[in-house]
C-alpha cells in the first residue's frame, strides 16, 4: 500500500501534468480561441505532436476544436472548455499544495 503522504503527488491529473499539454492548456486559458499555428509556435511542438496532444485533450473534454475556412484555406482553432479550465485550476492548486512552505526544505 502506498504511503498516504504520497497521495497528493500520485493523484495529480496526468492529462494536465504532461508538459506539452500543460503548455497548451495554459495558452488556451489566456485566450478565447487560439489558432493551430500560434499554438505550434509558442509551444515549440511539431505539427504531429501538437495534433496528438490536442486530440487527447479534446477526448478528455478539455478543449474544443473549431475548423473554419478563411477564403479557401482551412484554419484550425482551439478553445478551452469549462472542464479544461477547472482541471487546470485544480492542477495549479494541487501543485501549490505540494510545494514546501516558505523557509522549509
Amino acid at each position, binding site marked *: 500500500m502506498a504511503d498516504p503522504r504520497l497521495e497528493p503527488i500520485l493523484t495529480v491529473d496526468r492529462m494536465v501534468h504532461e508538459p*506539452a499539454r500543460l*503548455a497548451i492548456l495554459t495558452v488556451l486559458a489566456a485566450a*478565447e480561441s487560439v489558432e493551430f499555428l500560434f499554438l505550434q509556435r509558442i509551444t515549440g511542438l511539431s505539427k504531429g505532436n501538437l495534433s496528438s496532444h490536442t486530440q487527447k485533450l479534446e477526448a478528455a473534454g478539455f478543449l474544443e476544436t473549431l475548423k473554419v475556412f478563411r477564403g479557401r484555406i482551412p484554419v484550425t482553432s482551439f478553445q478551452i472548455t469549462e472542464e479544461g479550465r477547472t482541471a487546470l485550476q485544480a492542477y495549479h492548486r494541487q501543485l501549490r499544495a505540494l510545494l514546501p512552505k516558505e523557509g522549509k526544505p
Partner: protein
Amino acid sequence: MNASNPTSPTPIAQPADPEHLATLTREYGAYGRERSGLGLLLGELLLGLQTGFVLGLQLGWALAHRNGTRTWMEWLWDGKAMGHPAFVALMLFPPILWLAGKEHLRRRYLSLGRVRIPESPSLRHRRILALVLMGLVSTVVLLLMPMAWHGAWNSGLALAAAGGFAALFPLACWRWAAPGAEALVGLVFLLLVSLALLGAQGAYLLGLATMTLPAAFLGGLEGLMQHLEFKELERQLAAGARE
C-alpha cells in the same frame, strides 16, 4: 514582422513558466484587439498630413484676405473648388486609407496565427464611450448640413459626402478602430473631414488643426513604441517561448 519558419520549431522539453506563456499569449492577442502598432502610426501620419493640408489652405485664405489680393487660395475657399470632386476625394481618401491600411497591418501582425483574447469590461466601456462621442459629432454634423447648404460654400456632392461620412465613419471605427489613441484618431478624422466638407472656415477649423498636430506626433510615437514591443514579443515567440 516575419518570424523564422514556423514549420521547424524546437520541441520543448518542459513548459516554460506557465505565467510567461499566458502573458505572451495575451500580449500577442492584444494586437488583434486593442493595440495596432504601425496601424496607429499610419493613422497619426495621415491625420497629420491632412491637418497640415487643411491648415495650409486656411492660412493661405487668411493671408489673401489680409493683403487684399486674390490668389488661388482665395479662389479655393470662395466656394469654387470646395465642392469639386477632387477636393471631396482628397478629404475622404486619408481616413479610408487608414482603415484599410490598418486592417492589412493587423493581419500581418497576426501572421503567426490569430489569437482572440476576451474583451475586458474597461475596454468595452472605452469602445462604447468612443462610439457615443462619435455619434454626438455625427449628429451635430448632420444638423449643420441644412445651414451649410444655404451657405452655398460648396456643392451637393461635398455635402452628401459629409453626411455619408458622418453617418458611416463612426460605425467603421466601432468595427475596426481600437479604443484609446485609435478612437481619438477616428474622432479627429470625423471632425476634420466633416467640417472641411461642410465648408467650415476660420477659428474652429484652425483651432482643431492646431491641436491635432502635436497630438498626432505623440500618438505616432505611441504607435512606434507598440511596434517595437511587438518585435520583442515576436523574438520571444521565435525562441519557442522558452526563457
